[in-house]
C-alpha cells in the first residue's frame, strides 16, 4: 500500500482551513467527441449514456464526462462535447468504439464528430463502426475529413472516420470537508459548478465522489484500491493516522481530469475558492505520497483567486 503524504501545515481562505498538501495526478490519453442531435435534450441523452459507468479507470477502464454543451457544432445542430480518458491510446480507442457504438449510434437523431481534428495520433471510430452497415454503408469526404454514413432504422448515422487522441492529466482532485454531510456536500457542489469548464472532465456522479480511495489495501494484497480510511470521519477515533480534523463531519472528493496540466491546475483553483466561499470547513487533497504521479498540484500554489 502507498501511504498518503501527511499535510505539514495549513493556511486559511476566509473561514476555510486549507491543508498544505498536494494533489497527485498522472498522464493519461484522451479523446474528445462532439455529439450532435436534433435537440439539445437528445444530444445530452447520448452524451450521458456514453459517459455512464466511466468514473474510474480502475473499475471502468476509462474515465469520461460531459465537458460542456456546444452552441457551434460541425452540422449546426445542438451538441455536447465529451472527454474520455484512459491510460493509453489503445485503451482510448477501445472505449470510444464501445461507447459510441452502443450509446451514440443507438440514440435517436445523433451524429458523432471529432473534437481533436488537429491531433496527429488517432484511433479508429467510423472506419470500424461502418461494418455495422453490413455493406450498405457509404463514406463521404467533407473538407478533407472522411465520414461514414451508416443506414439505420431512422435514416442514417453519420460518424467521423477517426478521432484524435491527446495527452492529458488525470487525477487532479480536491477533498472538501464540512461540519456535517449537508454542508460538505453544498460546498462540494459549489466547487463542481466552478470547476466545470472547457478542457476538464469530472467523471464521478455529479462531479463528486464520496468514496475516495487509496492505492492497495491494508488487509489484502490483491485489492487494487480500497477506501481512503484516513478521510473517513467515522474512523477518526479508531485510527492513528486520520486526516479528518476536529469540526469536520463529512468529506467529499472532486476528481478532475483535464486536457493539460494547466487546465487541471486552474480548475482546482476555481474549485478551491468556490468551496471556501460556500462554507467548507476544510479543503485538502489526495495523494499517494508523491512517488506515483508525475504531476503534483500543491494547494499553496492555488491561494490566489482565479
Amino acid at each position, binding site marked *: 500500500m502507498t501511504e498518503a503524504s501527511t499535510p505539514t501545515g495549513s493556511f486559511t481562505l476566509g473561514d476555510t482551513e486549507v491543508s498544505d498538501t498536494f494533489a497527485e495526478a498522472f498522464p493519461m490519453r484522451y479523446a474528445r467527441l462532439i455529439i450532435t442531435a436534433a435537440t439539445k435534450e437528445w444530444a445530452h441523452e447520448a452524451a450521458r449514456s456514453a459517459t455512464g459507468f466511466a468514473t474510474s479507470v480502475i473499475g471502468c477502464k476509462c474515465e469520461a464526462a460531459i465537458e460542456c454543451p456546444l452552441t457551434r457544432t460541425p*452540422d*449546426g445542430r445542438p451538441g455536447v462535447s465529451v472527454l474520455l480518458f484512459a491510460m493509453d491510446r489503445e485503451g482510448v480507442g477501445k472505449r470510444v468504439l464501445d461507447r459510441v457504438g452502443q450509446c451514440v449510434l443507438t440514440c435517436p437523431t445523433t451524429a458523432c464528430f471529432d473534437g481533436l481534428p488537429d491531433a496527429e495520433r488517432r484511433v479508429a471510430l467510423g472506419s470500424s463502426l461502418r461494418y455495422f452497415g453490413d455493406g450498405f454503408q*457509404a463514406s463521404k469526404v467533407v*473538407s478533407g475529413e472522411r*465520414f461514414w*454514413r451508416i443506414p439505420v432504422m431512422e*435514416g*442514417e448515422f453519420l460518424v467521423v472516420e477517426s478521432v484524435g487522441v491527446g495527452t492529458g492529466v488525470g487525477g487532479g482532485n480536491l477533498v472538501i470537508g464540512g461540519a456535517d454531510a449537508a454542508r460538505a456536500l453544498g460546498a462540494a457542489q459549489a466547487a463542481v459548478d466552478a470547476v466545470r469548464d472547457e478542457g476538464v472532465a469530472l467523471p464521478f456522479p455529479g462531479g463528486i465522489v464520496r468514496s475516495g480511495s487509496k492505492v492497495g489495501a491494508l488487509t489484502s494484497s490483491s485489492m487494487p484500491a480500497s477506501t481512503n480510511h484516513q478521510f473517513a470521519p467515522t474512523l477518526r477515533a479508531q485510527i492513528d493516522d486520520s486526516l479528518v480534523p476536529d469540526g469536520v463531519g463529512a468529506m467529499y472528493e472532486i476528481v478532475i481530469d483535464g486536457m493539460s496540466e494547466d487546465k487541471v491546475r486552474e480548475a482546482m483553483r476555481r474549485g478551491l475558492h468556490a468551496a471556501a466561499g460556500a462554507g467548507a470547513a476544510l479543503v485538502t487533497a489526495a495523494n499517494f505520497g508523491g512517488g506515483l504521479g508525475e504531476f503534483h498540484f500543491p494547494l499553496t500554489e492555488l491561494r490566489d483567486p482565479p
Partner: protein
Amino acid sequence: MTLSLALRTPPPGRVDASVLTPERLRGRGAREVSAMTLSCGRLRLPLGELFDVVGTGGDHLFVAGDLRSIDGIGHGMATGHIVVDGSCGDHLGAGMSGGEILVDGDVGAWAGAEMRGGHLTIRGNAGDRLGGAYPGTRAGMSGGEIVITGDAGQEAGAGLRRGLVAIGGRSGAGAGLRMLAGTVIALGGVGAEAGMGNKRGSIASGAPVRLLPGYTFAVRYAPPALRLQLRQLKRRYLPVDDMFLTGQWARWSGDRTELARGEILIFDDGE
C-alpha cells in the same frame, strides 16, 4: 511573393497557358516570366507580348483581364494560390492535385477536369464537363472540391470518382454521367438524364428533376452528410439557403442499370 499578370493584348487565337501555375513560376522574376513562351495554335508567343508582368513568382499568382481565349490556367498545379480576375477559357485547373484557384468570372469547358485534389472556386458560370473525365478516360475527378456560384454546362461531374462538385445554380443535362462515387450538388437543380450509369455517387438537386427510370424512390428524410456538406459550402462563397440545411430531401436509389448503390437526393420539403 506574388506574381501579377494583366492581359494587355487579346491573343490572335486560343492560348495554352498551362505553364501558369505557382510552382512553374516560383522564383522567376518579371523579366524571366515575360520571356517564357505560350502556344497559340502553331505560334509560340512570348508571355510578355500578351501580359504586363509584375512581381516575382511565389505562392500567389494573380491573373487579370478578358481571359476567355486563355486555356489551362493552373493546369496540374499542386500547391499555391491562383486568383483570376475575369472570365477565362477551358481546362482551368484540370488535373490539379492541390492548392487553390479562385475565379471572379465565368470559365469555359473542362474546368477541374480529372482534378485529384485542391479547391477550385468560381464566382460565375462554368462550361461543359465541369470536373469531368476526358474522352477515353473512365474516371473524372478523384479528389478535391469544385464550387461554382452560377450555372454549369452539360455533364458536370462526369465519371466522378471522389470529391465534390457544388453548383449554386443549375447544371445542364447529364450531371454525374457514369459517376463512380463522390458528390454533385446543384442547388438550382440538375438537368435531364442526371446520374446515368451512376454506381455509388450522390447527386443532390435543389429543384425537382425528371429522373431516369433506373432510379427508385426510397424515402424523404434529412440526410446528415448532405447537411454537413452544405454547411461547409456555405463557408466557401456559396450562398446556401437555410431551407436546404433543415428541410427534407427525397432519396432515389439508382442507377439500376449499374450497382444501384448511388443516389439522387431531391429537395422536397413540401407536404
